[in-house]
């Protein structure tokens, strides 16, 4: 529902000028006297307008004059349509009702509704009342209105969902509803501690009063915080958030059928792992269910898909596959990732790749270039287009790579010195061990120290290139840089056990896997989602749904954010102190928004046009009356 607001409401005072024609009209009516006259029989009626017609004409004239003056005043006041039904100047009481999962304990939301009804009833009589419900997102359910029954009805219709708590989002929405008016906010919530998301933005203007109505939570809560398939069983974790020891039946449901049941006992504030063995196939939709009659309800179920993860396609380009060694170490290393199904590696030489189309290559999540000597011009162009267009490429600089044509392959001059450098027994050293590629090597420490590199190619320093690892001699071993929209990793030795014995080291497999994962991050088809982050087309509610069509079809599961399961709550004072306050200078944004809206709508021009029409009409009617 939209309401009219004014950019310069003081000009509306000018509408009082409409009283002038009214007074003149009344004065004119007063002088319309009766005159006693003896020779009335000699007065002709012909040129005298009929009294009623004349009165109607005078009323039309009056209306036109008033309309012209009012339209003039309204036009100068710069009207625009704003998103509020109540007058923009009226003070407003915004009732902000928490509908997150932490209000879903039995009877808890009913108490919250009761508090909301009381907040509506106790709002000052002159105030408009608005209702906002919030969990992960805030929704203006009822814009500012004087119809309090509508607000009460909306409160009755509200329910607690499975979403998390985002206080700043709710406050930002309340601030937007209040705008530049006087206002107060009544927040009805359980004071969930996890509701103050650090990345959120939003607060209230100075002077906006806040009243926090705390709705007490349950004394305890059990939640299934994780569930994952491990071969022929499902491992579930049940967390006890309460101060008392708890026991619960844990049931595994597969495709709607009970597959297994176990009993879990959880110490106070502790979690317990439960292994659920059962007979189930390679695919299916499962859920782990616990019994918790006192706590929050949505976290009593955890959904999981039993389907194997779809493999990520990676192509390894070698100089000559007939040599039987090109790419074999990479292929074998990636074959074990994710239990053997995470990656599918295709090894091709340059001649085969040259027959591919750009579309075929674009379906590869990453390309590992181990040799370029058999690449023809088309093959080089394909790889360059792939990389610049957003592809992920790992380039090794072993003996099968021709430095002379490398610029044609990757589209840039990588600064590769053609002559190999002999580096006896050089080892790898990560420059930043927190990098995702080197994260597995944090423990045990020094695993990369076993890597032995005999030869490598030296790289000239280049801007925009990041060295991720160096050889013990100081030369770059692994670098990362952006090329167009793509990403290029360069390993300065080889992966084929010619210049380096790295492929024979135990650290090669995790290195290759993590490098592949790093390159293909975001290209994997994710299956597990946590509210509220769900992909397009998937409902923002816990459950298992099918997404995509054809070859991209997959089963995805959506679960609640278990941070919401915690019973930890802030105090009212802490809550109030956490509210970010902006001074009235922040009104500037509101005013600017109003100005932009007004300039876009330009109702003042319509008002002036209507005023001109009214004046023309007045002139025509007035002339006829004269």
């Amino acid at each position, binding site marked *: 529902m939209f309401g009219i607001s004014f950019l310069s409401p003081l000009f509306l005072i000018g509408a009082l000028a409409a009283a002038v024609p009214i007074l003149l009209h009344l004065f004119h009516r007063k*002088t*319309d*006297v*009766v*005159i*006693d*006259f*003896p*020779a*009335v*029989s*000699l*007065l*002709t*009626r*012909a*040129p*005298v*307008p*009929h*009294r009623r017609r*004349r009165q109607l004409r005078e009323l039309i004239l009056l209306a036109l004059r008033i309309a012209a003056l009012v339209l003039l005043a309204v036009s100068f006041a710069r009207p625009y349509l704003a998103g509020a039904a109540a007058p923009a100047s009226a003070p407003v009481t915004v009732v902000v009702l928490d509908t997150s999962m932490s209000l879903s304990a039995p009877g808890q939301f009913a108490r919250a509704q009761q508090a909301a009804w009381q907040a509506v009833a106790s709002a000052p009589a002159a105030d408009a009342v608005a209702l906002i419900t919030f969990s992960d997102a805030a929704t203006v359910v009822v814009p500012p209105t004087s119809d309090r029954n509508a607000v009460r009805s909306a409160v009755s219709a509200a329910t607690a969902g499975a979403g998390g708590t985002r206080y700043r989002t709710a406050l930002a929405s309340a601030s937007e509803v209040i705008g530049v008016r006087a206002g107060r906010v009544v927040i009805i919530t359980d004071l969930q501690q996890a509701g103050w998301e650090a990345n959120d933005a939003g607060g209230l203007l100075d002077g906006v009063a806040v009243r926090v109505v705390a709705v007490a939570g349950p004394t305890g809560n059990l939640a299934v915080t994780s569930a994952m398939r491990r071969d022929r069983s499902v491992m579930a974790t049940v967390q006890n958030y309460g101060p008392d020891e708890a026991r619960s039946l844990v049931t595994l449901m597969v495709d709607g059928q009970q597959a297994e049941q176990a009993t879990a006992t959880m110490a106070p504030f502790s979690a317990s792992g439960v292994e659920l063995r059962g007979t189930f196939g390679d695919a299916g939709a499962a859920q782990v269910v616990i019994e918790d009659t006192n706590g929050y309800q949505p976290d009593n179920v955890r959904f999981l898909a039993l389907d194997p993860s779809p493999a990520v396609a990676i192509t390894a380009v070698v100089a000559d596959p007939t040599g039987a060694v090109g790419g074999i170490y990479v292929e074998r290393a990636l074959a074990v990732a994710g239990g053997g199904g995470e990656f599918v590696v295709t090894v091709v030489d340059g001649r085969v790749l040259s027959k591919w189309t750009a579309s075929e290559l674009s379906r590869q999540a990453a390309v590992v270039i181990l040799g370029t000597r058999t690449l023809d011009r088309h093959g080089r162009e394909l790889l360059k287009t792939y990389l610049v267009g957003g592809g992920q490429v790992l380039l090794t600089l072993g003996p099968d790579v021709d430095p002379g044509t490398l610029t044609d392959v990757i589209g840039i001059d990588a600064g590769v010195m053609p002559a190999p450098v002999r580096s006896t027994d050089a080892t790898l050293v990560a420059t930043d061990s927190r990098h995702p590629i080197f994260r597995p090597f944090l423990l045990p420490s020094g695993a990369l120290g076993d890597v032995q590199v005999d030869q490598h190619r030296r790289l000239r320093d280049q801007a925009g290139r990041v060295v991720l690892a160096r050889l013990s001699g100081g030369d770059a071993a692994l670098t990362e840089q952006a090329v167009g929209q793509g990403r290029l990793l360069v390993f300065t030795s080889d992966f084929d056990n010619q210049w380096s014995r790295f492929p024979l080291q135990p650290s090669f497999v995790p290195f290759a896997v993590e490098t592949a994962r790093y390159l293909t991050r975001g290209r994997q088809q994710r299956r597990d989602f946590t509210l509220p982050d769900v992909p397009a087309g998937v409902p923002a509610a816990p459950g298992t749904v099918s997404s995509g069509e054809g070859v991209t079809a997959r089963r995805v599961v959506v679960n609640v954010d278990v941070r919401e399961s915690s019973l930890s709550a802030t105090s009212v004072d802490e809550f109030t102190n956490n509210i970010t306050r902006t001074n009235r200078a922040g009104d500037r944004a509101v005013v600017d928004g109003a100005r932009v809206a007004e300039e876009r709508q330009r109702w003042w021009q319509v008002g002036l046009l209507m005023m001109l029409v009214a004046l023309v009409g007045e002139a025509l009617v007035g002339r006829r009356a004269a």
Partner: protein
Amino acid sequence: MAGEARYLDPAIVARLATIDLKARTIVEGFLTGLHRSPYKGFSVEFAEYRQYLPGDDLATLDWKVYARSDRHFVKKHEEDTNLTCHLLLDVSGSMGYGSGPITKLQYGSYLAGALAYLMNRQRDAFGLIAFDNRIVSLVPASARTGHLRAVLLALERLKIGAGTNVAKPLRDLAAAVRKRGLVVLVSDLLDEPQSVLDGLKHFRYRGTDVVVFHVIDPYELTFPFEQSARFRDIETAQEVMAVPSAVRQDYVERMQARIAHYKRELGLAGIDYCLLDTSQPLELGLMAYLMTRRRVL
């Protein structure tokens, strides 16, 4: 207006106390002014002496003065008659209208009183009939001493009546007046013109002379109103919404046409017609009367 003549102004006369005083003031003022007018010799009463001039009627020469002073003086005197005069005064509602200090009825009353006073001085018998749509007051004609007072008292007591119906009283009076004489009608004639004319012609058929004083208010002649208003007829309460500027010309033309109609039709019937605007001096009325009387005698 200066000297005695200012007393002929109807507004001045209205301030005088009684109708008796008003009538005397009007007539004396009129007669004083008449010294300088060519209308001397109408009365039998002595008026004045003046030096004989060649051409004067020798019969008017006062020989006694000549014997005493050896100078020729002509004796001017008022004329003596036995005329019976009936004063008909319209007291209908429309006569109550007055845009200025006096109404048409007041003006007519002063005129009737002055005429009565003048008739009394000339020894004429006179009577008064006041009417609206009927006769509301009747003082029979007489030349007795003290009759003037009765007529003036009757004039003093007159009140505004109902609607005008000139024709009916005129017919009644025409039947009642048997003796040849003079009928003086003072009215605003706001009746059906043909009815009025028919009524007056009855007198003429019986040989009675008639003089009509058409008393009219200046606003009735010019319709000078400016603002739009509802005009309500004083007698019938009929209302007409009018914008004066739009209807003025038509109204004035209609009024002038009616006056012209009366003047023409009454002239054809041998009836004297005198239009009197209530802002005009009353001497015009007296003068008209004297002219008619002269013609009658």
